[in-house]
C-alpha cells in the first residue's frame, strides 16, 4: 500500500546529494566515474517514477506538474548519457595530464551537486528556493568552467561569474517585487512565494508591480538562458570548460533558466491587467536568433561555434513560447527537447574530436569522416539535425513553429526564416570544411564512447519520423497550460 502523497520527487534531490558526498571521498577515477553513472541512472529512474502520477503532498515545498515533468525527464536522461560520455572523456584528460586526481574528485562531486541544483530548481514550489537553486547551479558551473586553470579558462569563469551574478541579482529583485505584489493579497509569509498559491491569486495582484517584476525576471533569468544582449558569458564558458560541462550547460542549464521564465510567464498570464509577456520574449528571442546566426560565420573554435548555435536555438525556443498558443508552445517544447538531445550529442562528438587532434581550432580539422569515420559521421548527422533538415526532430518543431508564425505574425515569419537560413549556411559551411576532404595532421588515438552520441541522434531521428501518441498528448497538455 502506497501512502497518500508518496512520490519519487524527493529522491531526485537526495540521490545526487548523497552521490556528491560519496564522490568527494572516492579517490579512484574509474570507480568514481562508475558511481557517477550509477547515481545518474538512479536519478533517471526516480524521474521516470514521477510518470506514475503520484504527486508530492500539497504544501511539501515540492511541486510536480505536467510542465516540470518534461524538464525533469530530459534533465535526468541527458545527465545519464553525459555521465557515460564523461567517463571516457575524463579518462583521456587524466592520461594526458590536463586534470589531476584532486581536480577529478572535485569535478565528479560538482557534477552531482549541479544535478541536485537543477532538479531542485525544477521541483521547488517556491520562487525563493527556485532562485537559490539557480544560484547554486551557477556557482557549480563556474568552478567547473575554470577547472583547467589556464588563463583562458579563468577569464571565461570570471566573466561567467560576474555576468551570472548580475543576472542572479536582477532575478532576485524581480522575485522580491513579485512578493511585494502578492503581499497585500496573501499576507505575510511563505504562501506568498509558493507557485501554487501565486497562480491562484494572481488576478488580484497589482498589475504595475507585476509588470516591473517581469522585466527584472526576464533580464535576470534571461542572462542565464543566454539571450542577446546578455549572452556574453556563454561562448567563453562553453569553449573553455571540460566538454561534458559544455554539453550539460547547453543541453540542460539553459533550459532551467527558461523554465523559470515560463513559470513567471504563467503568473503574468493569470493576471488580465498585466502586460502580455509574449512580445518581450518574442523580441529577445528573435534578436538572439539573428545575432547568433550572423556570429556563427566568423567562428574559428568549434566549441564556440556550437555555443553560438545554442544562443540561436534558445532564441528560437523563447520566440516560440513568446508567440504562445497551443501550436507555437507545442513547437517550443518539442524544439527544446530536440535541441537538448542534439546539442549534447554534438558536444560529445566535438569533445572527442578535440582530444583526437589536441586542439579545438576548426582550421586544424579536416576530413574527419575519413580519418575517424565513427566520430565524423556522428558529427555530420548531428549538424544535419541541428540545422533543421528533415527527417530529424528539429525540422518538425521548426516547421510547426514557422507555420504557426505565418498564421499569427506573417512578417515575423519572414525574419525567422531568414535567421534559420543564415544559421543553416554557416553551420553547413563550417561542418563540411571539418568533415570532408583530405585528413589533416597526425592524431592521437582516443577511446571514444560513441553510444551516448548515437543514442541521442537515434532519438532525434525517431522523433522526426514518429512521436508516440502519449508524448504528443503530454506535450499538448503542457502547451495548453502555457497558453
Amino acid at each position, binding site marked *: 500500500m502506497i501512502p497518500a502523497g508518496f512520490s519519487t520527487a524527493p529522491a531526485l534531490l537526495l540521490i545526487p546529494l548523497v552521490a556528491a558526498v560519496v564522490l568527494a571521498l572516492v579517490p579512484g577515477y574509474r570507480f568514481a566515474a562508475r558511481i557517477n553513472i550509477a547515481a545518474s541512472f538512479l536519478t533517471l529512474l526516480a524521474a521516470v517514477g514521477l510518470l506514475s502520477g503520484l504527486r508530492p503532498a500539497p504544501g511539501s515545498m515540492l511541486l510536480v506538474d505536467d510542465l516540470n515533468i518534461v524538464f525533469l525527464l530530459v534533465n535526468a536522461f541527458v545527465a545519464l548519457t553525459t555521465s557515460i560520455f564523461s567517463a571516457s572523456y575524463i579518462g583521456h584528460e587524466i592520461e594526458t595530464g590536463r586534470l589531476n586526481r584532486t581536480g577529478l574528485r572535485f569535478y565528479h562531486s560538482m557534477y552531482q551537486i549541479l544535478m541536485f541544483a537543477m532538479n531542485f530548481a525544477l521541483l521547488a514550489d517556491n520562487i*525563493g528556493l527556485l532562485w537559490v537553486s539557480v544560484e547554486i547551479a551557477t556557482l557549480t558551473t563556474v568552478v567547473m568552467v575554470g577547472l583547467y586553470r589556464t588563463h583562458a579558462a579563468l577569464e571565461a569563469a570570471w566573466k561567467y561569474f560576474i555576468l551570472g551574478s*548580475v543576472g542572479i541579482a536582477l532575478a*532576485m529583485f524581480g522575485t522580491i517585487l513579485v512578493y511585494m505584489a502578492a503581499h497585500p493579497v496573501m499576507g505575510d*509569509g511563505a504562501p506568498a512565494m509558493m507557485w501554487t498559491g501565486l497562480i491562484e491569486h494572481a488576478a488580484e495582484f497589482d498589475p504595475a508591480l507585476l509588470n516591473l517584476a517581469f522585466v527584472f525576471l526576464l533580464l535576470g533569468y534571461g542572462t542565464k538562458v543566454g539571450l542577446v544582449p546578455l549572452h556574453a558569458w556563454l561562448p*567563453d564558458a562553453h569553449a573553455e570548460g571540460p566538454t561534458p560541462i559544455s554539453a550539460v550547460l547547453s543541453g540542460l542549464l539553459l533550459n532551467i533558466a527558461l523554465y523559470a521564465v515560463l513559470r513567471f510567464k504563467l503568473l503574468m498570464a493569470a493576471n488580465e491587467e498585466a502586460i502580455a509577456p509574449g512580445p518581450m520574449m518574442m523580441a529577445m528571442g528573435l534578436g538572439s536568433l539573428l545575432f547568433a546566426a550572423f556570429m556563427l560565420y566568423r567562428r574559428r573554435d568549434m566549441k564556440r561555434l556550437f555555443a553560438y548555435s545554442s544562443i540561436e536555438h534558445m532564441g528560437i525556443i523563447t520566440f516560440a513560447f513568446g508567440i504562445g498558443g497551443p501550436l507555437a508552445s507545442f513547437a517550443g517544447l518539442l524544439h527544446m527537447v530536440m535541441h537538448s538531445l542534439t546539442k549534447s550529442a554534438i558536444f560529445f562528438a566535438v569533445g572527442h574530436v578535440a582530444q583526437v587532434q589536441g586542439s579545438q581550432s576548426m582550421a586544424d580539422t579536416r576530413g574527419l569522416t575519413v580519418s575517424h569515420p565513427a566520430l565524423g559521421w556522428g558529427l555530420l548527422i548531428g549538424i544535419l539535425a541541428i540545422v533543421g533538415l528533415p527527417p530529424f526532430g528539429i525540422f518538425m518543431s521548426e516547421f510547426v513553429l514557422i507555420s504557426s508564425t505565418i498564421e499569427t505574425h506573417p512578417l515575423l515569419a519572414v525574419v525567422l526564416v531568414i535567421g534559420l537560413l543564415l544559421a543553416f549556411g554557416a553551420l553547413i559551411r563550417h561542418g563540411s570544411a571539418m568533415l570532408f576532404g583530405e585528413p589533416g595532421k597526425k592524431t592521437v588515438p582516443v577511446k571514444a564512447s560513441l553510444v551516448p552520441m548515437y543514442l541521442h541522434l537515434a532519438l532525434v531521428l525517431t522523433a522526426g519520423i514518429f512521436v508516440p501518441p502519449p508524448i504528443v498528448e503530454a506535450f499538448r497538455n503542457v502547451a495548453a497550460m502555457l497558453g
Partner: protein
Amino acid sequence: MPGYDIAHALAGGLVLISLLLLYQDRLYALLNMYAMHALVLALAVAWQAHIQESPHLYVTAAIALVFKAIIIPMTLHRIIQRLGIRRQIEKVFGVGLTMLAGIGLIALSIVVMLKVTPDFDPLAREDLAFALSVILLGLLLMVTRRNAVSQVVGFMALENGLVLAAVGARGMPLVVEFSVAFSILIALIVIGLFLFRIRERFDTVDVSALDQHRGERQ
C-alpha cells in the same frame, strides 16, 4: 508610521554612499567607503527589524556588520597587499560623466518605483525606490571599472541594495537565508580572487589580446 524618518534617512544615506563609491580613485579608499556602505546597511536593517518587530532580521543586520563591514574589507585589503595589485582604479569614463549617469539612474528608479506603487505604504515604496537606486549604482560601478577588485566592490554594493529591498518587503520569508546565500557567494568570489591571483580584470578593451585567447584569429 513610527520610525519612518530614521528608516528614510538610513536608506537615503545608503544611496549617498553609493554615489561616493563612484568617484573614488584609490582602491583602499574604495574599500573604506564600502565598509561604510555595509555599516549603514546594518543600521538600516536593524532599524527595520525594530519597527517591523521581526527579530530574525537582526541576524541579517549582524551579518552585514561583521561579515561585510569588517571581515570582507579587511580581507580584500590583505589581498591587494599580497598580490601587489595596482592601487589606482582604472575607469572607463571620467568621474563627471559617471556621476551624471549615477544621478540619472537614481532619478529613473525613483520615477519608476513611485509610479508603480501608488497604493503601497510610503515607507515600503520609498525603501524600494532607494533599494533600486543602490542596485543600479552598483551595476554602474561594475561596468565602469576595469579592476577586478572594484568590480567585486560594485557587486557587493549591488547586493546591499538587494538586502535593503528584501528587508523592506514586510514579512518576506527567507530573507535571512538570502543574506546568508549572498554572503557565501561573496566569500567565494573573494576566495577565487585570491586563489586564482586575478590581479587586474582581464583587459577586454585590448581586442587583439582577447581574440587570441578566444582562438578566433591567429
